[in-house]
């Protein structure tokens, strides 16, 4: 139960990290440069980007915004307005293919979304994704879903010409891919060095990971404290239970001590039993947690497009102090008992 409790809490908290990195995971495959205090990335900066050795393609991109529901609320999600050639390259680079429908036509109020986003928003082909009356998915004209995408990353895209025509204040950003897909990280670092921060901002996967981890660091600290309290409380209670359990077994220990067992051997016997019990308990708890989280994922999270990893190794690592602390607590409790154990006092109780 305690393993399930700790692992479930950590898995749910980890799903924040997982959600952010999955939702915005497209940044592994391309960087985005957005202007600051301007409606377009200045041409000299664009030129500097094109001249970087790892730069492959640079496409203009204009963003519209929608939202994705997460377990911690709605998160903004960029609908990339891309020119046809750029969109083709980005889809190919991200390993995305059309799962249903088609790609948006140039200049038309149409959008294609990853199937996960469509499921998350409960949208079907033909449904309106952006609309004039929406606060978080605004567009001057209704924009309909015409295609869903399947692949390892989430993406939303429309045509650059449509955004340019209907979102007059949407800035003109740049989507930058590396010459060699394996060199995207190197290009990201080069972009961060080359682009002056006062005039433009570079959005990379590296920065996303860094910013996410920084944002969640306080949460993880709180989580660590909460888990430490849970572990201590459970270990204390279990230690007390072990004490009661071993009190009931005192005649057994007294007999063994009387016939010549060393206290150390008795303690090792208890250690072995407790460690085995805790290990089996941990394994059963971990398996039960995987089952529980898999069920939650299948029945609750996945249908809503929410992310949860039932095999989150970090979550199970958080549970490791449980069997260790419980064993130590039980051992100390029994050691104190055995230290004062007088076999004769037990044997003489001639019940």
């Amino acid at each position, binding site marked *: 139960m305690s393993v399930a409790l700790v692992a479930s809490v950590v898995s749910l908290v980890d799903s924040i990290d997982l959600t952010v990195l999955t939702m915005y995971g497209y940044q592994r495959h391309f960087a985005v440069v957005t202007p600051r205090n301007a409606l377009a990335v200045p041409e000299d900066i664009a030129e500097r980007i094109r001249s970087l050795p790892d730069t492959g393609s640079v496409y203009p991109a204009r963003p519209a915004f929608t939202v994705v529901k997460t377990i911690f609320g709605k998160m903004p999600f960029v609908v990339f307005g891309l020119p046809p050639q750029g969109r083709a390259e980005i889809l190919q680079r991200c390993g995305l293919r059309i799962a249903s429908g088609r790609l948006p036509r140039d200049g038309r109020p149409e959008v294609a979304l990853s199937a996960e986003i469509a499921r998350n928003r409960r949208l079907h082909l033909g449904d309106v994704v952006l609309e004039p009356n929406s606060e978080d998915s605004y567009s001057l004209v209704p924009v309909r879903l015409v295609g869903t995408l399947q692949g390892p990353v989430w993406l939303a895209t429309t045509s650059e010409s449509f955004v340019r025509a209907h979102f007059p204040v949407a800035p003109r950003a740049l989507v930058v891919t590396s010459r060699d897909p394996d060199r995207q990280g190197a290009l990201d670092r080069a972009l961060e060095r080359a682009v002056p921060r006062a005039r433009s901002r570079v959005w990379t996967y590296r920065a996303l990971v860094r910013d996410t981890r920084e944002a969640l660091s306080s949460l993880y600290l709180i989580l660590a404290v909460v888990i430490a309290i849970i572990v201590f409380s459970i270990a204390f209670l279990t230690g007390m239970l072990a004490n009661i359990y071993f009190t009931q077994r005192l005649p057994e220990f007294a007999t063994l001590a009387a*016939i010549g067992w060393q206290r150390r051997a008795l303690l090792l016997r208890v250690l072995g039993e407790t460690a085995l019990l805790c290990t089996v308990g941990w394994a059963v708890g971990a398996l039960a947690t995987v089952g529980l989280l898999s069920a939650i994922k299948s029945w609750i999270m996945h249908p809503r497009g929410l992310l949860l990893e039932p095999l989150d190794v970090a979550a199970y690592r958080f549970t490791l102090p449980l069997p260790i602390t419980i064993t130590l607590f039980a051992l100390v409790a029994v050691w104190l008992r055995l230290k004062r154990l007088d076999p004769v006092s037990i044997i003489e109780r001639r019940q």
Partner: protein
Amino acid sequence: MADPSPCRLRADRVSLRYFDGDAATYAVHHACLCLRPAGFIGVIGPSGSGKSSLLYLLSGLKRATEGDVWMDAVPYSRMDDRALADLRRRRFGFVFQQPFLLSYLTAWENVLTAAPHGDRSAGRRASTLLESLGIGPLANRHPYHLSGGERQRVCVARAMINEPEVIFADEPTAALDHVNGHAVIDLLASYRHRGTVIVVTHDAEMLAGADRVYRMRDGILENGDGPANLP
């Protein structure tokens, strides 16, 4: 004429004193004993006479408050708790009034708890012992599936598994009926040629076949081997 065989276990003016507030009470007072390497020895006395306390002193389960006990000329006062435990494990065997068997182990496994090394030869010895005590077919049963007499026989087998030099039996028949009581005493007595068997009881009938019977009353060993007689 003095017996030429040396004492295996010797108690010299050994006492066990308790304090009840400021008043000292002797459970055993200045007892002197010399137990030779073989024989069936009885200690008899009424309830509360200190006979069990004497057995605890002789077996090293309790430390003497005065005097000392020697096993083959090594005094217990020179042994630490580990050494005493080792002595009990390797050279002594015990049968208590209550069987105190481990309920989650079979009879055979219970016998093996007293073996320092639970190896194959110990396992074979345990099987042979259970056979010889007439409970071989019950070796794989748990204590809760055994009668009182059968449990006490398992305890006798446990006491004998190491072929100890001394077996201490504290009221081994008290929880048994007459027939089972005699059967257990006979089993213990049969060990008299291989080692010393000390049986503490309040039932004189059980000690009818003893080589020697010591009497205790109010902590005094009435017919002990006086200090002058100790070799």
